[in-house]
């Protein structure tokens, strides 16, 4: 059984039929990338999984358990962390409070403290800013904080929506290194990226989404070598 299964899901975003029978599986320990052009339904897929925009048909299952219609808050508690597009940190709260909120569903104080320490080791820049308020951080620091906050819920699966958006090239590399580190420590990752080449190189497998449908899937090597994918998404 896959860790996370999305089974023939239809989702409407307002009146737009954003996902039309999307299915994908994510095995424990994988990094899976979802590529596709703007408006293909990548963000909607993540929102469907995390319960922010629930599916109207089909199922989302975590370890076989149907979570399709659970409220978003509960889904976080079950082990799906969502780092939404555009970072969306809490601008007027301290960096520390942002992190504490990440662990909102957890009760194990000791574990939270340990994880905070660990997350801050992953993101030393966030540690330096701990007492500052979120809004005063630079774009890159905000992205790091957003990922750090996502990790504080101790997710089994982390959904990352465009983590490199708007970041300087050096920083993009850093972020991808960290994504790989997080994965190595046992967190499964579902990634959306504009920067498809970069994303595919760190991933095990990929899916290509076009106007709400999965049109191609496979190991990253295959996708990277596929002429269609190269032409449409990799800019080769």
């Amino acid at each position, binding site marked *: 059984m896959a860790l996370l299964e999305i089974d023939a899901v239809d989702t409407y975003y307002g009146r737009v039929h954003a996902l039309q029978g999307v299915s994908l599986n994510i095995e424990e320990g994988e990094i899976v990338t979802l590529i596709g052009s703007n408006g293909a339904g990548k963000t909607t897929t993540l929102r469907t999984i995390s319960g922010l925009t629930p599916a109207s048909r089909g199922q989302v299952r975590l370890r076989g358990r149907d979570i399709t219609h659970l409220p978003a808050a509960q889904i*976080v508690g079950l082990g799906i962390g969502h780092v939404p597009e555009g970072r*969306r940190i809490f601008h007027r709260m301290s960096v520390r409070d942002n992190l504490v909120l990440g662990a909102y569903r957890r009760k194990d104080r000791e574990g939270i403290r340990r994880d905070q320490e660990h997350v801050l080791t992953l993101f030393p820049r966030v540690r330096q800013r701990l007492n500052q308020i979120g809004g005063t951080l630079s774009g890159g620091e905000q992205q790091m904080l957003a990922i750090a906050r996502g990790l504080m819920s101790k997710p089994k699966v982390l959904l990352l929506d465009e983590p490199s958006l708007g970041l300087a090239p050096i920083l993009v590399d850093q972020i991808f290194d960290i994504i790989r580190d997080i994965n190595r420590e046992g967190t499964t990752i579902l990634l959306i990226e504009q920067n498809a080449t970069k994303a595919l190189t760190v991933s095990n497998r990929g899916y290509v989404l076009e106007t709400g449908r999965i049109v191609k899937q496979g190991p990253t090597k295959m996708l990277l070598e596929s002429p269609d994918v190269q032409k449409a998404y990799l800019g080769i």
Partner: protein
Amino acid sequence: MSTAQRPNKPRLADLTSGWDDRDLIIYRLLLLFAIVFPFGATFLTGGSGGALINTAADAGVYVLLAIGLNIVVGYAGLLDLGYAAFFAIGAYTVGMFSSGQLYGSPLHHEIHLPFWLLLFVGMFAAAGFGALLGAPTLRLRGDYLAIVTLGFGEIVPRIFRYLGPGSVLGNWTGGVNGIAGIDPPSLPFGISGPWENGAAFGFLPRFDFIDPLAFYILMVILVVLCVIAANNLYRSRLGRAWMAVREDEVAAAATGVNTVAIKLLAFAIGASFSGFAGTYYGAKLSLVSSENFAFVVSVTVLIMVVLGGMGNIPGVIIGALGIYYVLFNLLTNLPDLAVNAANSIGLGFLNTSKGDWIGLHDEVQRLNFLVFGLILVLVMLLRPQGLLPSRVREQELAKGISEEAVFDLREES
């Protein structure tokens, strides 16, 4: 913080552990002022400070209201324009259940519950209605939410006015006349009623709250309790969740905050403070009338919160006291002040009416609220963050917010 330096603090200090040190200093000053005030008022007026102390006790009602509204608006970021409705609910609770009013109702019995119990009844009644108002507004944001709360604020006093003599449901609230003859709070905590003449509490003389000073002391105690409660809410998990919802509802939901429940709790808990205030207000005035809970009350409290420093309790208290002073003292005395000022600088001729000029006193009286408006505009221009903003707001304004800033390479290397 101070907690780490002093591990063996006495119990009272535990209530304030983790509070901002700057805030603690302000609280101590305010408390000191509250203690000195009655003495000062008595000495300065040559022994007739009752009126001043009475005014101060009334101002306390607004302090309670502002602390409560700050939870809804300042913490959770939900713009509430009908906050006076909950104030009304608290006041009518004490009105109905601590006076002869219900004798004329279909119940045909007077109910005289003790004030101390009604404080909590009023609190819970207001909280219940707060949740009731919250429920239909949960899907609304910003302006839309404000309009619905505005409607609620209009409806509630009207319902109380309607449920008077001649209403289909009977006379519960006295209608346009309101409810008069509300029992004053009394000590000891005995339940008043026909059995009271017995000797049950014979060994303890009964003390009725009539003297303004008694009400003043009661109000100071209520404010202290509410400040402690609000501060600890702010530092709690719930407080953090409120702020997360205020900042970004989607992100809050994505971190596991149940935004629906959290917003309902903001309305309910915010309302409970004003239920508290309403109960006190009804018992002190001994009279409630639907006119006391008009839209202008909601707006006044909102001004107090925003002007004082939204989200920061000391700021909100100072805002409440400041606005109360301006509205109910400065503005009412302004015509006389203007006349005196004109006389003392040799412009006494302004005081006599001539043609369209109706004399300085009456002219100033006409322009009273123009002055109020000017004060509001000036304060907001000079201190957009409020008189005493929270630390967060200060940092934000000092450093500037980089909402979608592209990362600066130089900073990285």
